[in-house]
C-alpha cells in the first residue's frame, strides 16, 4: 500500500480530493433525503457501507419512499449497477493480486474510480489512482451520509450547488484523454447516441448498457482485416 502513496503525485491527489469533497456533499444529501423520507437513521448508512453506489442508492430510496415495491427497488438498483461487470473487466488488473485486495478493490469499484484509473498512463499510476480514489470516496461518501442522516435537511438539494453538473463534468474531464483517440471517440459517440435515444423509454441502467454496442463502431477503424480477426475469435 505504501507505494501507492509514493506514486500519487500532488496534482492527482488534489483532483481526487476535490471529487471526494463533492461526493461527500452528495452523501450528506443522500442521508438527509433518506431520513426526511421517513426511513430509519441506520438505513442510509447501511446502504452506503454495503452497496456503495450512489445512483442505485438514490433509486432504491426513491422507489420505496414513493410506495413502490421493495423488490422492484432492488431490481432497479441492480440494473443500474450492472455496468460494474464491464468495468471489472476493464480495471480488473489494476486491483492487484491476492484475495483481500481483490475483494476490497472490487467493492471500491465505482464510476469515479474506474474513470480515474483509465485516465492514467501507466499501470503503476492506474493502480495508485484507483486505490486512492476508492478509499477516499468510500470514507467521504460514508461520512457525508452519516452527517446528512443526523444533520437533517441542511443540504437536501445539491442542485443549488450545481453538484448535479459536477458529476458528469468529472467523468467527462477524465474521459477526454481517451476520447482524443479517433476509434475510441467514434465508439463513444455511437454509444452516447444509443443511450440518449433509448433513455426516455427504458428503465435506468439499460440505456448505458445498450451503449456498449458502440464498441463495434470503434472496431471498424483498422479496416477489414481487423474486423475479421475479431470475428474469428
Amino acid at each position, binding site marked *: 500500500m505504501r507505494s501507492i502513496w509514493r506514486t500519487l503525485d500532488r496534482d492527482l491527489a488534489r483532483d481526487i480530493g476535490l471529487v471526494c469533497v463533492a461526493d461527500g456533499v452528495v452523501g450528506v444529501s443522500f442521508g438527509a433525503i433518506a431520513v426526511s423520507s421517513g426511513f*430509519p437513521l441506520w438505513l442510509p448508512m447501511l446502504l452506503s457501507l454495503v452497496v456503495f453506489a450512489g445512483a442505485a442508492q438514490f433509486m432504491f430510496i426513491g422507489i420505496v419512499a414513493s410506495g413502490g415495491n421493495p423488490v422492484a427497488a432492488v431490481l432497479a438498483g*441492480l440494473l443500474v449497477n450492472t*455496468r460494474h461487470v464491464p*468495468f471489472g473487466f476493464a480495471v480488473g488488473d489494476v486491483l492487484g493480486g491476492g484475495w483481500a485486495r481483490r475483494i476490497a478493490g*472490487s*467493492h471500491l469499484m465505482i464510476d469515479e474510480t474506474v474513470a480515474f484509473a*483509465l485516465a492514467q498512463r501507466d499501470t503503476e499510476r492506474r493502480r495508485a489512482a484507483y486505490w486512492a480514489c476508492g478509499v477516499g470516496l468510500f470514507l467521504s461518501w460514508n461520512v457525508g451520509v452519516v452527517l446528512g442522516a443526523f444533520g437533517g435537511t441542511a443540504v437536501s438539494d445539491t442542485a443549488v*450547488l450545481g453538484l448535479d453538473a459536477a458529476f*458528469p463534468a468529472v467523468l467527462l*474531464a477524465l474521459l477526454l484523454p481517451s476520447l482524443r483517440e479517433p476509434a475510441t471517440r467514434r465508439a463513444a459517440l455511437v454509444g452516447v447516441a444509443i443511450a440518449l435515444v433509448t433513455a426516455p423509454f427504458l428503465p435506468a441502467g439499460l440505456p448505458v448498457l445498450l451503449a456498449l454496442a458502440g464498441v463495434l463502431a470503434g472496431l471498424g477503424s483498422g479496416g477489414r482485416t481487423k474486423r475479421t480477426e475479431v470475428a474469428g475469435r
Partner: protein
Amino acid sequence: MSTPLVLVLCTVVLAAGTFAFRIAGPLLRSRIELSPRLERLMAVAAVVLLAALVATTALLEGHEFAGFARPAGVAAGGVLAWKKAPFVVVVLVAAGTAAGLRLLGVP
C-alpha cells in the same frame, strides 16, 4: 413503509448482487490470459459506458429533460477540459455555471 426486516433483506440482496457484478471481472481476468487486443477492447468498452453515463446524467433526470442549467454547466466544464484547463477549474466551473444559471431562474 416497509418493515425494518424487509429493508435489511433488500439492502443485503442489493449489496450482494452489486458485489457479484463488481468482482466478476477481476475474478475471471485472474483465470484467463487476455490478448492485448481484447484488453484494449475492455478499456474502450469502459470509456463508452462512462461517456453514455455522462450524456444521460447531463441531459436527463429520470426519463425527462433535466433542464438547461445542468447540461450548460457540463458543457462549460467540457470545453475547459478540452482546452486542457486544470481539473479543479473544470469541476468548479461546471458546478458554478449550473448553480449560477439556477440562481438567475434558468431551470
